[in-house]
């Protein structure tokens, strides 16, 4: 057996937040006080990051679907899915400690470009970058990328594996002592410590080297979110942190056990950090939370949600919202989205919800959602953290920064008082926050 990792000896709670402003709720733009002009949207993004940093969060997380979503959603959404790399580079100048996690597709972006952009962000943020590696399943995303079609499920992960290897090799192009800056002799860099990737395969020919040194955290942190068998296996081998979502404690514990075991089996000494999504509505009191929940309900757009479900082979559009859930409109099986489909079926049958109620339940995907007082939310976090279900959470405030602000004011102090969460940042990089050590440079190791 391997020795206990530092994380096992002294576990720390990790909290990240979805950076999407004005919030994770699609109808957030309807909430009174949320401005729609571009300047106020930019300002909301900045404030969300700054509030997250004031609350000592590990990082802010930007998803990116690389497409505008199903046609049926267009009428109801704000076009504010900013490209994450330039957005986070901008936010890096508005924050000092907050980790910046961006989504990047292993299928649609050239590995050289991915490696270069992520390393650029890592440098400009002083070692705070993370890469949420997605394998991009949607046809709609493929349609935005010229001729490259959608790759089959298992092939996607084989490709992701190769892309990750190329990207990490490129990140190591410069050994840490390559720059000698000998002003007298005019020698800036020792060329024997700069390495070409020279990766040549059926799928990729990438020469390298990358035109920059490593960052202060060595390499960006790898996040991954796959839930399928292939996705989980990939995450267990490669992810520093895993984004997931399960409604019940038992399901969360089961996932946590499996992924941890798979990581051990793969020979990993530092196990992946598991951070499920956490949707919440909080107020300073239970009553205030319930009042806010009413606002969220009123702003919610069921037609929008129904249009999204078409993506996972569920088509309930046009059915009466106050009637029963038309279960015959759920695909019997789905090759691409089997996990999601099964989760939604459970939501649709438990407690016999109306279609509207079912659609409302789906806003947290099928992950954890808690509405209530600061104590209630802190209790749920603590319970899952202490019972082998999570190492932390990615917060999904329905309206941001408003709800995040309340979380930081009321929930964070409770978590601190209970000895679960930091009282100050102990380091400056995302790896520092997550308790990860910088990876050794592969070329230095091989010397």
């Amino acid at each position, binding site marked *: 057996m391997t020795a206990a990792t530092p994380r096992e000896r002294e576990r720390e709670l990790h909290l990240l937040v979805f950076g999407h402003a004005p919030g994770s709720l699609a109808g957030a733009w309807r909430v009174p006080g949320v401005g729609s002009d571009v300047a106020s949207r930019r300002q909301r993004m900045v404030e969300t990051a700054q509030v997250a940093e004031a609350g000592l969060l590990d990082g802010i997380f930007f998803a990116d679907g690389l497409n505008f979503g199903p046609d049926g959603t267009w009428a109801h959404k704000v076009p504010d899915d900013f490209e994450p790399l330039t957005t986070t580079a901008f936010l*890096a100048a508005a924050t000092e400690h907050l980790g910046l996690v961006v989504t990047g597709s292993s299928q649609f972006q050239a590995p050289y470009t991915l490696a270069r952009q992520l390393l650029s962000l890592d440098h400009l943020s002083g070692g705070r970058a993370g890469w949420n590696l997605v394998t991009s399943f949607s046809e709609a995303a493929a349609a935005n990328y010229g001729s490259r079609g959608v790759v089959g499920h298992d092939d996607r992960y084989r490709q992701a594996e190769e892309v990750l290897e190329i990207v990490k090799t490129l990140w190591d192009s410069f050994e840490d002592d390559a720059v000698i800056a000998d002003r007298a002799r*005019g020698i800036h860099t020792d060329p024997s410590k700069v390495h070409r990737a020279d990766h040549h395969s059926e799928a990729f020919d990438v020469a390298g080297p990358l*035109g920059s040194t490593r960052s202060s955290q060595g390499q960006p942190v790898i996040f991954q979110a796959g839930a399928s068998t292939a996705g989980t296996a990939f995450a267990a081998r490669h992810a520093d942190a895993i984004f997931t979502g399960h409604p019940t404690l038992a399901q969360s514990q089961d996932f946590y056990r499996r992924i941890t075991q798979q990581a051990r089996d793969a020979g990993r000494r530092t196990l992946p950090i598991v951070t499920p999504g956490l949707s919440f509505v909080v107020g300073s009191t239970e009553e205030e939370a319930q009042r806010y929940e009413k606002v969220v309900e009123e702003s919610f757009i069921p037609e929008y949600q129904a249009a999204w479900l078409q993506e996972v082979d569920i088509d309930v559009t046009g059915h009466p919202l106050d009637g029963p859930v038309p279960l015959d409109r759920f695909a019997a099986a789905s090759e691409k989205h089997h996990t999601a489909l099964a989760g939604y079926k459970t939501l649709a049958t438990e407690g016999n919800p109306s279609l509207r109620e079912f659609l409302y339940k789906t806003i947290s995907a099928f992950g954890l959602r808690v509405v209530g007082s600061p104590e209630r939310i802190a209790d749920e976090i603590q319970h899952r953290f202490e019972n082998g279900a999570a190492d932390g959470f990615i917060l999904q405030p329905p309206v941001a920064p408003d709800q995040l602000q309340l979380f930081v004011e009321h929930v964070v102090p409770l978590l601190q008082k209970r000895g679960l969460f930091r009282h100050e940042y102990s380091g400056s990089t995302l790896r520092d926050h997550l308790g990860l050590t910088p990876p050794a440079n592969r070329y230095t190791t091989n010397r």
Partner: protein
Amino acid sequence: MSERREGHVLLGINVLTLGYLPAAWQSNLLHTHAPTDPDYWRRIGALAERGTLDAIFLADGPILGNPSYDANNTRLDPTIIWSHVARATSQVGLIATASTTFNDPFELAERLLSFDVSTGGRAAWNLVTSRDTGSANNFGLDEVLGRGDRYERGSEFADLVIALWESARTGDDVVHHGRHFDLEGRLHVPPSEQGRPVIFQAGGSPQGRALAGRVGEGVFAAELTKEGALQHYREVKQNAVDFGRSPDAVKILPGLLLTLGSTEEEARRRVDEIHDLGPSAYSVLWLSQAIGHDVSTLELDEPFPAELLEAPLDVSTFRGSIGFRQSIFERIRQSKPTVREYLRETRYTGSGHGGFAGTPEQLADKIEDWFYSGAIDGFNLQPDRLIDQLEVIADELVPILRARGLYRHEYETDTLRGHLQASSPTPGFGRTPGLATAPEFA
């Protein structure tokens, strides 16, 4: 000239990381990791705003050069650097180079528009088609395409990017099935304060100038002589008019390699000092690449052989910049230097891009002369070393230009397109009613 040209010049800075001279990194003013240090980049942005400059410009190639003597080959992604600097500045335009050969049009359109929103409408895309094999090797290609194919792809790429930016405004899908790209979709990023990013173009080939006339709003030109500049200025402006645009819709800013000193001698001494720190082979290698001929095979103390200067250019094999090559040969034909003299002279007069070594007063004279002659709308200044020369530009050159009525006293507009359009109208074309100076926005 019967009537003096109205309005003011445009001033940009071609940052080239630390400066255009490869030995810039050896200065004690810079610490070792300046090119990757966010503080360095924010400092450059702040200095540019101190001088109320119109824009700062970052060239790019997705490749590492020879890192043993050239720290400028540290190349982070310009859109990411400038998005970072956006937060530390509020008015200066931010121009990022990106290649149409090594990017995907959807991804780049989304990235540039997000960048534009982050900057509050101060972003520009400098469109390049890339010409080096080393970059190609980083993207699974053995060679870059020939010039014709590159520009054909580049042109389709530019149209598609513009259509996607428009889709962000109109909400309509782009349906495009072209020779190089198939795309059905739209962007889900809001238009910025200037609608969409400004487009710059830097190539001096006929294809490049045609593209600039059609879609360019700024041209980063390469001019060694005023006569050449005058001719190219008219040509690009005429191209714009031929495409139904106003001549004012495209602004022309040649690059100018720059060293300022309190006397001309001091400036020349500074050039020599920084040059002599760098490897001696650098200028030979640079010139060889620029003219497509191995300069080390030439007699150093003989003039350039006439057959070299007159030989027709084989555009199918030449990988260098046609604009640079033209301007270099023009200069050599004019002054007939020996190879050694030329290499020496180009330290002060530039090579490819024009050069200048002298006092701020003398530079103001040159800017004034070229501006009133109708050869430029402004200059893209390329300091030998940014960290100290940018202060001289902001604190000495700019006040002189202001005193002469050639430059504004403060920012008068908030977006980059606003800055460009507020500069002096094109002389000699008259005002053509009905022609658009800027893309229209809701």
